[in-house]
């Protein structure tokens, strides 16, 4: 990483879907170890932005680096080093907890796959559910599984897209404990949310309010 501190540094990201602007001129800098909140109402472009940061979407305009790799041209390198947790549960419901994790571990080519899977299951507390089909889990357990899958390859940057939506308060608290624990280990986290109280759990809220006001204003447009 060139300047040492910035894990994410993007300027003027813009993405348009069939003439409809989803993200307009978005800039962001996230430093190492931060838990960076990313607040905005539904439809304001949070998911689209995160997808551009983790190499799933190519920005139409703008530039920048994620983990030192170009977000427009080095997407396959970004994918190997970023942990991404999707807004909607997107693991395989017809696979068990451990099968899902083993699959993801294989996709990242982890040398000691079994051990990596066991360690993450232990850490996140999914031990009793390892043989359950992912589709049979409740919202809170699905969320843990999704976080485990995003962490299994020990990424330096974690991108979480509304991770606690539809999860009960206890599970939510535990989830945030996990995130803070990771932060202490030096993992950088960017987390999107549309709850103000959740944004307060983040240690960086820079420009968040501007973004929020900006986005709220945009939503009121026809």
């Amino acid at each position: 990483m060139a300047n040492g501190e910035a894990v994410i540094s993007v300027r003027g990201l813009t993405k348009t879907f069939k003439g409809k602007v989803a993200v307009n001129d978005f800039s962001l800098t996230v430093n190492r170890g931060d838990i960076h909140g990313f607040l905005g109402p539904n439809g304001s472009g949070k998911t689209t932005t995160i997808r551009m940061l983790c190499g799933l979407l190519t920005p139409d305009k703008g530039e920048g680096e994620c983990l030192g790799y170009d977000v427009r041209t080095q997407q396959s390198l970004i994918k190997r080093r970023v942990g991404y947790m999707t807004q909607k549960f997107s693991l395989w419901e017809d696979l068990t907890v451990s099968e899902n994790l083993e699959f993801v571990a294989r996709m990242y080519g982890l040398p000691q796959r079994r051990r990596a899977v066991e360690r993450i299951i232990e850490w996140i507390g999914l031990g009793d559910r390892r043989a359950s089909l992912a589709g049979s889990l409740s919202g809170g357990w699905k969320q843990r599984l999704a976080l485990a899958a995003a962490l299994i390859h020990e990424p330096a940057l974690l991108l979480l897209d509304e991770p606690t939506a539809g999860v009960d308060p206890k599970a939510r608290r535990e989830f945030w404990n996990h995130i803070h624990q990771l932060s202490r280990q030096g993992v950088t986290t960017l987390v999107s949310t549309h709850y103000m109280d959740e944004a307060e759990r983040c240690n960086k809220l820079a420009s968040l309010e501007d973004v929020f006001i900006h986005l709220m204003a945009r939503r009121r447009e026809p």
Partner: protein
Amino acid sequence: MNTKERTLSLSRFIAVVVKEFMQMRRDRLTFGILIGIPVAQLIIFGYAINFDPKGLPLAVVRGEESVFTRNVITGLKTSGYFRVLDPPVSAARARVMLATGEAQFALAFPPGFAASVLRGERPQALLEADATDPVATANAIAAATLISADALDRDLPPGLFSDLRRREGAFRLTVHRAFNPEGVTRYNVVPGLLGVVLTLTMVLVTGVAITRERERGTMESLLATPARPVEVIFGKIVPYVIVGYIQVSLILTAAWLLFGVPMVGNIVTLLLVTLIFITANLSVGVTFSTIARNQLQSVQMTFFFFLPSIMLSGFMFPFRGMPGWAQWIGSILPLTHYLRVVRGILLKGLGFMEVTQFLWPMVLFMAVALTVAVIRYRETLD
């Protein structure tokens, strides 16, 4: 630093294979259909094959009558396969009756038949068959051929004429299959079924390979990993090769045990060639799944591919009887070539070297399909 990581990974390929296997195992319905389709088709076609119609109308062409002609006709009657129409008709009328379906067979004796038999010249009687439905006439023709061999033996007085009772019979029965020059027989159906079942199920099952990931939202998880198109596409094909082989063994066993289809050729050669055919069809399926927006669309595409395959490959209609444009389309389709290979190996005992000419069109087709699939597979959600 390299700007893009372009290397392929065996580990990721295996990951996709294992995942597909597990999902296949859990998806009882699909697996049931994959086994059920060959069984159902076999029963349906098997019924048609075993269907052994008797009492088929036979018109006799008017001509010289003798004890010999009468006895041939009686022999045909007693076999049960023929219902002899009375009275004998003119040759022109017999042709009309064949064309209209009033008669399925027409039997004609040449002038001077009796004298010729007695002279030991083995004259030729002509049995013309309406072979548009070859399955229906095959048994009757077989019976007639058997009868002709010894029908006249007891009419030939011992002593002087005994040398006329030769093994080949006192006269020759020439069978002319009208309307179906290729004379597709019952044995052609079951080997053909092999190709038809594989075409339908292999395209159908991989046709949803990518669309299903997209519809369930799991595509995002897959794309978030460093998966490369080739790894995903091939990883999704491999498990179904094994399913294809299960189907092949089912059909071949049934063909042999239930329908007595002869297996002259080398089964190993057949299985080897089948690998190419299966992979070609799986490739088409994957290609469809990269194009289709949803599972319904990919099923529609499958039938769009399947129907010309059974119509224009020579499975349903004789290939040589089709118009040029239909033959042209047919020769693009893998099934056309596979049918020739299967029939060639099973029925005619062709070896590997002799069937290579049918292989390259399949390989070419597969290569094109796979290329389209890999190009169509996006590594991003754009």
